C-alpha cells in the first residue's frame, strides 16, 4: 500500500515580500500544485534545516492569486523566514484545521474584533463577508493595535469601509491597556470595562449577532467574556486559537488541550467550547 506522506511539504516559491511593520512581513507564495483552502485554515510553513511553524492563511482562495502569509518575527523559524527574498522556495503543508462557521451567521449582525496580528486570520473571512454583504445585516470591525503604525492591511480596511463596514479603530491608550490585560495584572477588572468602551461602540444588536475575535491570547478571553456579558450567545462567539504545533495533523500532541487537538478539532472554537474545555 502506498501511503501519501502527510509530513512532506509542498514546494512553494516566494513571489513577493512586503514589510508591513518593522517586525511583520507579508509573504506571497506560489505553490507548485493547486492548493485550495478556506477562511480560518492554516498551513505549516517549512524551511529545510530550520523547522516548521503553523501560520494562518490570510488570503482568500479565488480572489488572491497567491497564498499570502502574514508572519511576525518572533522565533527561530520565523526569523529565518524573514531573511528570505523572492524566488526562494519554502515548503508548505496543509491546509489544516476547521473553518469559520460563517454560513450560520447569514441574516445576522456580525462583529469582528482583531488585535494586532489577529487581523491576519480574519482577513479572508471579512473579505468573504464583505463580498456577500447582502446576506448579512450590519457588519462592524474593531481593530486594535499597540501603535497606529501597526495597523495592518490598511488598503483592505479602506475597501471594506467603502462597502459599508463600520470601523472602530483603537490605537491609542485604551487599546494599549486592552493588550496588557492578562499579563498577570491583578487590577484586571477595571481594564475589562475599558475594553467594553470599545466593544460598545459598534451599532449592532448584540443579542442577535455573531462575533469573531482574533488576537493575542491575553486579549481573546477578556474580550469574549465581555461580549458574552453584553448579551451575546457564547455559541456565537468564535475565535481562532494558536498553539505550539509540530505536525498539524493531530499526531504530535503539542497542541492538545483537555480533550481537543487545536490542529484537527480547531483552530476555530466557540466561546462555549473554550469555557467547556477550559482552554484558558
Amino acid at each position: 500500500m502506498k501511503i501519501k506522506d502527510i509530513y512532506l511539504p509542498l514546494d512553494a516559491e516566494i513571489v513577493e515580500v512586503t514589510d508591513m511593520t518593522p517586525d511583520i512581513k507579508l509573504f506571497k507564495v506560489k505553490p507548485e500544485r493547486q492548493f485550495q483552502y478556506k477562511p480560518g485554515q492554516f498551513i505549516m510553513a517549512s524551511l529545510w534545516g530550520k523547522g516548521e511553524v503553523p501560520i494562518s492563511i490570510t488570503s482568500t482562495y479565488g480572489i488572491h492569486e497567491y497564498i499570502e502569509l502574514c508572519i511576525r518575527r518572533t522565533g527561530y523559524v520565523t526569523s529565518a523566514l524573514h531573511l528570505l527574498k523572492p524566488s526562494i522556495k519554502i515548503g508548505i503543508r496543509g491546509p489544516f484545521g476547521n473553518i469559520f462557521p460563517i454560513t450560520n451567521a447569514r441574516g445576522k449582525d456580525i462583529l469582528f474584533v482583531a488585535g494586532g496580528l489577529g487581523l491576519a486570520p480574519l482577513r479572508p473571512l471579512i473579505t468573504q463577508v464583505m463580498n456577500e454583504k447582502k446576506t448579512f445585516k450590519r457588519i462592524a470591525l474593531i481593530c486594535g493595535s499597540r501603535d497606529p503604525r501597526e495597523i495592518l492591511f490598511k488598503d483592505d480596511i479602506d475597501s471594506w469601509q467603502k462597502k459599508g463596514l463600520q470601523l472602530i479603530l483603537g490605537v491609542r491608550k485604551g487599546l494599549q491597556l486592552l493588550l496588557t490585560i492578562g499579563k498577570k495584572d491583578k487590577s484586571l477588572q477595571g481594564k475589562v470595562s475599558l475594553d467594553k468602551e470599545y466593544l460598545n461602540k459598534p451599532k449592532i444588536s448584540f443579542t442577535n449577532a455573531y462575533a469573531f475575535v482574533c488576537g493575542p491570547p491575553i486579549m481573546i478571553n477578556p474580550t469574549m467574556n465581555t461580549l458574552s456579558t453584553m448579551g451575546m450567545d457564547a455559541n456565537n462567539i468564535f475565535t481562532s486559537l494558536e498553539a505550539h504545533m509540530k505536525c498539524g495533523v493531530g499526531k504530535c500532541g503539542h497542541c492538545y488541550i483537555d480533550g481537543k487537538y487545536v490542529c484537527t478539532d480547531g483552530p476555530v472554537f466557540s466561546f462555549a467550547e473554550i469555557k467547556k474545555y477550559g482552554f484558558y
Partner: protein
Amino acid sequence: MKNSLILDKNYLSYWLRQLRKKMSLIAPVRAGNTDIVFKTVENIHEIELDCPASMPSPKGLLFPQKEDMFKFSKEEINIVRDNTRRLIFGVRSCDMSAVALLDKFFSKDFVDGYYMSRRENTIFISIVCNNPDPTCFCVGLGTGPFLKSGFDIQLTDIGDRYMVETDSKEGAALIKEYHYLFSKAKRSDYEDQYETILSSQTRFEKRINLENARQKILSERISDAFWEWVSKKCFECGGCVYECPLCACFNVLDRCDSEGNGIRFRIWDTCMFKGFTKMAGNICPAEKKGTRIKRWYFHKLIYYPEQFGKFGCVGCGRCTITCPGRIDMATIAHRIDIGNRRRR
C-alpha cells in the same frame, strides 16, 4: 477460538529458527542482569518469557525514540522509510492491546506513513501472562492477561505445550507453512488453557477501576487543587510518558550542515516538560505543573474513550515502576475512585 492448535514446547525453537530466516526476530532478552529489553535475537535460547515486563515498552519498535523522516540536500528531498520485515515474539497481551490502539491512533484521519510502513511489515506473537507482575492491572481493563482478538498469533503456556491461536491472515500464514509442527487442540487442552487463564486472573494484586475514575472526572468533582496536590510530588522526569506503551507525542527537529545537507527527524517528547506547549513570544498555556499532569490524565481517561472507545491505558504498570513520586496511573486513578466512596 474453535480452531486452536497445540505446539509442543520442544518445537518452538525450531519454528522460530525457520521464521528467522525470512525476517528479523525480535524478542525479550535480559540486558545485563536486570532489565528486560526487546532486541534482535542472536541466540534463540536467550529469549526470556517468564520474566517481568520489558522496560521500555515495545512501542519503540514501531515508533522509535529517534526516527529520521527526511534526508535533504539542496537538490533533493528523500523520504526515509523502514520496510524491514520483522517478527516480534513474546510481547505481553497489554502491549499487544496498546499496539492495536496505536494503529487506530496513527491511522485516524491522517495516516502516519512512518508508523504504518513499520506496522505493515511487523508480525506479533503475543504470550498470555501466567504470572502477572505486582504492578499489573490489565485484568480490569480487558487488555489482558488473555486476548480474544487483535493479535497475529497468541500463545498460552499450558505446561509442556503451547495453545496457539491466530487472528490475522499474516499470522495464519506463519503457521500454515509449518503445519507439521502443530496438532489440533483436544478438549483437555481447552480445559487446561481455561484453568491457566483463571489462575492467572486471580494472581493480580491490583484492581483498578478506571471507569469509576473517569465518571468522577466527568462529573467535575475533581478540583484543580487535587491536581496541584499531585503536582507537588512530580519530579518532571517524563518517565511515565517514555515508558507508556501508548504515549506517542513527538517533536520534529532539523539538523543540517553548512552546505544545506541534513535530516529532519522526530523524537519522543513529553507533555510533562514545561517547554512542551511553549509558543513563540514566550506564551505557555500549560505553565503550571498541575495543568500538565491534569492534561496527561485527561488525555488517557477522557480523550481516548471519546475517540477510540478504550482507555488510553492498558494497565501494564510501567509508570508505577518508573514514577519516583508515586503518582502513576494506578495510584491516582485509585485515589480518585476511593476518594469518591469516602465522601459518600
